[in-house]
């Protein structure tokens, strides 16, 4: 017997969906309307108790800030509510399937969070004496060992702050080596059409020019086209493997040999390393540099857009050009090399990189072990293939055959239905799923890239497949309007992104006082 049943049991009358309630509060039951803090807080209120300053002598010179900054303050309960309400407007891995291809939304173990907060990692200053930070350095050294072993590569630069920063690291090491060898005329970088946008952007940021290589009909690098592009000015290639179509580049060793034959280097975008861990080592494929997204492959949380971490493994040819700082073993202890010497291309950022991500990633790796990491890779690939196989008759796989950790579909199955990839994605939101990656890679029309990761159970996958089949079938029956209207059950309906870009409002400003404006 539940509490409200005491004498007054609930017996609803038949539901009438025609009744729509406009609430006065703007709330919709659990979905609470949440104003901006600038509309609720005031600069005089604060949620932090600090002692009264004694009012001592001032050493700010003539530089003291006068007047109000305009920052609203909230008491602690108001702060709690504000952010808890906001949080409830977010989708999250912990809520449901988040099949964003290429982004690898896997489970984030909470042990990682606990370890990252241990004071010997979280509460250590980057420039306190290394003699007092030995535990942190040992962790970095251990992490390096795991990454180098999994990649069969002789060196790793830990400092890059994110995947794209790791790309920069690898490409700068390549440039430094080329310049050291007197090969400064090598400035052309080959990039497949299917590459992540960061690849060409990185190459340009390192002073290279970009030359695109087309794909074959089976979604892989066109070897003949690649050969035709080779020349003495080629600095290297930036290639993702498995590529962004979710396919393993079968000719990868040939590609590496070809690039090396003209004195170029092979940069591998490691965004999809989670399809290889424990089964394939990039060092065995002829890779010279590869960044590893700790926030994808090794489960450090994405946190709504970061922070990431992009340690970059380097081959024998490039290891002397690695950025500073790095950890070295020094007798029984550990030391940091912080000054760039010899070939090192310098420093990429203040301090030593993303310690908080190192501790999480190493915790994840040690928890899995060599056996668990391999199993995770296999499960990720199996889950993707299971989805592809289960949807092939109602959707259109872009290439078919076996895929790796993600399954790529195009929009041929939506042809003449009036439903577009975007509409299909928004309809998935109403089904309770985060949409897959859409319109990427660019080589496929209306691309839908589904990456389930190893974290999904078979039951969850079956429910997801059921929803996808239902939507695909519904699209073909001509029910366009329900797709165009979607999402209906999300906290917001479709947003006007065109308006946002045309007249950018990037911050709150106080409303204009009507009386004042009239004066």
């Amino acid at each position: 017997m539940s509490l409200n049943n005491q004498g007054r049991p609930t017996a609803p009358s038949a539901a009438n969906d025609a009744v729509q309630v406009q609430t006065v509060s703007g709330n919709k039951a659990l979905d609470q309307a949440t104003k901006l803090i600038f509309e609720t807080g005031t600069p005089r209120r604060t949620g932090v108790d600090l002692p009264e300053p004694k009012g001592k002598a001032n050493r700010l010179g003539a530089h003291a800030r006068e007047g109000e900054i305009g920052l609203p303050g909230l008491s602690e309960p108001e702060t709690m509510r504000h952010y808890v309400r906001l949080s409830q407007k977010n989708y999250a891995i912990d809520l449901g399937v988040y099949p964003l291809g290429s982004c690898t939304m896997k489970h984030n173990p909470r042990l990682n969070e606990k370890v990252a907060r241990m004071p010997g990692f979280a509460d250590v200053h980057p420039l306190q004496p290394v003699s007092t930070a030995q535990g942190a350095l040992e962790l970095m050294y251990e992490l390096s060992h795991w990454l180098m072993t999994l990649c069969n590569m002789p060196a790793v630069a830990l400092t890059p702050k994110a995947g794209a920063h790791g790309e920069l690291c690898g490409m700068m090491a390549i440039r430094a080596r080329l310049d050291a060898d007197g090969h400064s005329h090598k400035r052309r970088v080959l990039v497949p059409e299917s590459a992540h946008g960061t690849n060409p952007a990185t190459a340009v940021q390192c002073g290279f020019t970009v030359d695109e290589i087309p794909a074959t009909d089976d979604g892989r690098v066109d070897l003949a086209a690649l050969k035709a592009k080779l020349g003495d000015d080629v600095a290297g290639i930036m290639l993702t493997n498995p590529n962004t179509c979710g396919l393993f580049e079968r000719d990868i060793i040939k590609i590496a040999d070809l690039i090396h034959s003209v004195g170029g280097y092979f940069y591998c975008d490691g965004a999809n390393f989670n399809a290889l861990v424990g089964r394939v080592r990039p060092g065995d494929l002829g890779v010279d540099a590869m960044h590893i997204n700790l926030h994808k492959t090794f489960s450090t949380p994405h946190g709504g857009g970061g922070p990431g971490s992009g340690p970059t493994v380097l081959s024998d040819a490039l290891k002397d050009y690695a950025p500073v700082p790095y950890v070295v073993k020094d007798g029984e202890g550990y030391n940091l090399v912080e000054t760039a010497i010899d070939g090192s291309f310098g420093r990429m950022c203040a301090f030593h990189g993303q310690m908080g991500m190192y501790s999480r990633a190493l915790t994840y790796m040690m928890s899995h072990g060599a056996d668990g990491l391999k199993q995770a890779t296999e499960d990720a690939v199996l889950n993707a293939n299971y989805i592809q196989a289960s949807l092939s008759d109602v959707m259109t796989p872009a290439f078919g055959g076996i895929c790796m950790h993600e399954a790529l579909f195009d929009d041929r199955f939506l042809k003449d239905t009036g439903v577009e990839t975007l509409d299909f994605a928004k309809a998935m939101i109403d089904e309770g799923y985060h949409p897959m990656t859409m319109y990427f890679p660019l080589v496929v029309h209306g691309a839908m890239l589904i990456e389930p990761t190893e974290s999904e159970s078979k039951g969850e996958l079956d429910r997801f497949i059921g929803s996808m089949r239902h939507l695909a079938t519904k699209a073909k029956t001509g029910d366009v309007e329900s797709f165009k209207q979607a999402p209906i059950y999300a906290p917001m309906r479709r947003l006007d992104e065109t308006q946002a870009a045309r007249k950018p409002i990037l911050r709150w400003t106080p409303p204009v006082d009507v009386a004042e404006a009239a004066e």
Partner: protein
Amino acid sequence: MRYLPLNANDRAEMLSVVGVDNIDALFEDVPKSARLDKLVDLPKHQSEAAVERHMNRLSNKSIHASSVPFFCGAGAYKHHIPATVDHLIQRSEFLTAYTPYQPEISQGTLQALFEFQTQVALLTGMDVANASMYDGSTACAEAVVMARRVTRKNKAILAPGLHPHYAAATQTLASTLDIDINEITPEIGADASVIDMITDETACVVVQSPNVFGEIVDLTPIAEKAHAHKALLIAVFTEPVALAAIKSPGEQGADIVVGEGQGLGVGLNYGGPHVGLFACRQKLVRQMPGRVCGETVDANGERGFVLTLSTREQHIRREKATSNICTNSGLCCLAFTIHMSLLGDAGIKRMAALNHEKACELADLIDGIDGAKILNDTFFNEFTVKLNKPAAQVVEALAAKNILGGVPFSRMVNGVHEDLLLVCATEVVSDEDIAAFGAALKEVLS
């Protein structure tokens, strides 16, 4: 393995749906020579308790800031972080969400970003801010590249008080882009010297205030000279709390303001993750790197937020993007914004006043010790002490007495200013800590 939901039956069933006999069949595209036939040479899986024990052992090998009198700054600052902050950022909906590419189900992250951008704009005195960068140093480097885009000139001037790591990170990025940067000799009170270096060829001048030595710099005359030569002033800070006490860079004419936000909401983390702040004038917004969140309406006309101006970004513009940056520092900028929402104007001003007061007390004490001399005319919460011994040696001797007594300048630039020690005091430093530091320093210097 506790993180993997599939069992042997599931796997067998699923393989048959895929139409293959075994898992190896899914890896047939891998060249034979690269197929591993055994496990990599690493330990096998371990229980949660076993991993935790190992990590605890490592953690205990370091001396952490809260356990001792602590006076390190130089780009990373120890402040009290309200318990609310860490609780909220660990909510699944924030922690385990991706970049808010689907705004209908990401309004939590997006609204928080919009509030963050507004707070950063207010604090720096600028028109707009982006949704954060990796850290202060990379934000600084990106600002210099942006200045070249805006001015179409390629000479950047870095001031002698710029944090050496920021200067190094900027030089690294600039070196491959043929941006010409001056050699800098770090010096405490010499930032105004950049005024005479500005010419019509200058794209930007980069000045930190308070600078790495703690000295507060008057940016106004530098901005005036820069603008007279159609150059941009990039103002840099490493301690966000300082901006509540000193005139904002915006007020002094800065065109771009970049800095480190770690001091609010984010712990020391041995140097990362931190959170880079990036703000600029409205007219420069389309040249800004990084993600930006903007206000719009939904199909019902209700206010909502989206990522916007993405035509600047790599996933749309590819090789023509303003930067290769993809990730921001999402969770750290959430921590920053929650801490700032708790503080408000009143709180952050009081926090700043307490920082300044502690630093003044410490400076007065140190100045009275034989063999130690404060070099600053002005400072906020950190300052530079000239010692009669190498600072690195003094810091080691203090550490042996269980005091983390600041950062030797030579730790950042090997062999330079070996007698200079950067000392910082924040609101977490107690009177007892200050007394202990004074007594220990006296002993070490005598």
